């Protein structure tokens, strides 16, 4: 069975239908009702790189649906340090589990794992490549906030060069006719090949260094962390980092329904004063990781989510 490696593995129709499944699964994700759809199924969590939210939300998603999880554990003590190839690791875990969630430092690792495996692979991030389960939870959050994915103006701000979440998300948003504004320091611009690719697909893309000057047009502002270690000069870092710090006072003239998202962890790019505004969505977004992954686990395991789920308000 095929897994989810990049967003290209899903049609727009698939995306809509998975998001609808996720919506119905909300009471299960909140623990208001128990629905053991995945009883007897085992998820293999293979995280070759540190992860908090992605790994925990996969685990929570599986357990909320009555399934079980086995973990690779610390890479430093696993067979990987003994020089085992990814191919061999996958062969082993493939035999133990029904589905695998994987994060790996090398790009292309998820596609490689899928080619080696019989069970579906869920790509939880491969190098600076793709992170489609994050994209699904981002899309879910956007749809929850605006009731649609179509035709929105979305600003992606911060580190657009190395941030895999913004790469996957941009591709997905363009498929729904969204207008994209990329706000980043010059050093951390969206890679040219991605911008070209998006434009070839007919995308309306603007590149700028100015976040606050464009913020009033936005329906969604997607912030990312600017990593200090990417800059050789601390002064250079201080100069650009300051331009991407959102404070509640910056939001006075924004659209009232505009939402601010962030894949987290944040450092100081969103001031805590924003947390209490109607615009903040990042903590809901983090919670949505569970429900989006529940819907994906069901889809890839071929388990239908019932049309009616009791016990909640979904």
């Amino acid at each position, binding site marked *: 069975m095929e897994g989810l490696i990049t967003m290209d593995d899903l049609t727009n129709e698939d995306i809509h239908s998975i998001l609808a499944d996720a919506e119905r699964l909300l009471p299960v994700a909140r623990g208001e009702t128990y629905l053991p759809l995945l009883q007897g199924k085992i998820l293999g969590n293979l995280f070759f790189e540190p992860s908090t939210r992605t790994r925990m939300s996969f685990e929570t998603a599986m357990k909320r649906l009555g399934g079980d999880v086995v973990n690779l554990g610390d890479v430093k003590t696993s067979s990987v340090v003994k020089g085992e190839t990814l*191919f061999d690791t996958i062969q082993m875990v493939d035999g133990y589990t029904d589905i695998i969630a994987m994060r790996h430092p090398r790009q*292309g690792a998820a596609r*490689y794992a899928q080619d080696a495996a019989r069970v579906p692979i869920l790509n939880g991030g491969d190098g600076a490549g793709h992170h489609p389960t994050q994209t699904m939870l981002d899309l879910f959050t956007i749809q929850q906030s605006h009731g649609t994915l179509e035709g929105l103006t979305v600003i992606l701000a911060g580190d657009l060069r190395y941030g895999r979440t913004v790469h996957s998300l941009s591709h997905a948003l363009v498929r729904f006719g969204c207008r994209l504004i990329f706000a980043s320091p010059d050093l951390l611009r969206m890679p040219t090949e991605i911008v070209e690719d998006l434009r070839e697909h007919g995308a309306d893309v603007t590149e700028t260094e100015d976040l606050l000057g464009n913020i009033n047009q936005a329906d969604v502002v997607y912030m990312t962390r600017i990593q200090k270690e990417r800059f050789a000069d601390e002064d250079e870092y201080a100069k650009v980092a300051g331009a991407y710090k959102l404070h509640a006072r910056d939001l006075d003239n924004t659209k009232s329904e505009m939402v601010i998202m962030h894949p987290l962890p944040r450092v100081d790019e969103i001031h805590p004063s924003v947390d209490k505004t109607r615009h903040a969505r990042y903590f809901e977004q983090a919670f949505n990781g569970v429900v989006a992954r529940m819907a994906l686990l069901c889809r890839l395991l071929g388990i239908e989510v019932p049309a009616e789920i009791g016990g909640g308000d979904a």
Partner: protein
Amino acid sequence: MSEEHNMRRVTAIKNGTVIDHIPSGQALKVLELLNLSGDTSVPVSLVMNVPSKKMGAKDIIKVEDRELNQFELDRLALVAPDSSIAIIRAYSVAEKLNVNLGEEVRNVVRCTFSNCITQNLREPLPHRLRVAKTDPLTLRCHYCQRPQDLDELIHNLL
């Protein structure tokens, strides 16, 4: 000048391979690709920038006492996808072969991206690059999806 005249610019070979319709100026790259540019014991003749009805101008290579195999044809497809190959035995054309780039090249060249999973040479799955564009040739790694052109790839031939 006729095509026949082109072929006579160098002596007819008794046994070996004639690679015709190489894009003009690419013959040296083809030699490199087929490991014929360095220390080799077989005689190689080269004609460059000769007139061609089909291509305007072209290069031709004649390799004596060596018949190209499928693996070499796959490599050749990267530089000269429209070239025609004649296997010569006893001064006559014994076989005509076509080079075909196809949609994907498998185990011909290795992805150049330093962080691609295929950089671990012990990983056993095949090196796969999909043809994303033909003019100029751009291949995209099946795994990491990084686009790359021939100038980068030529150093990563398997």
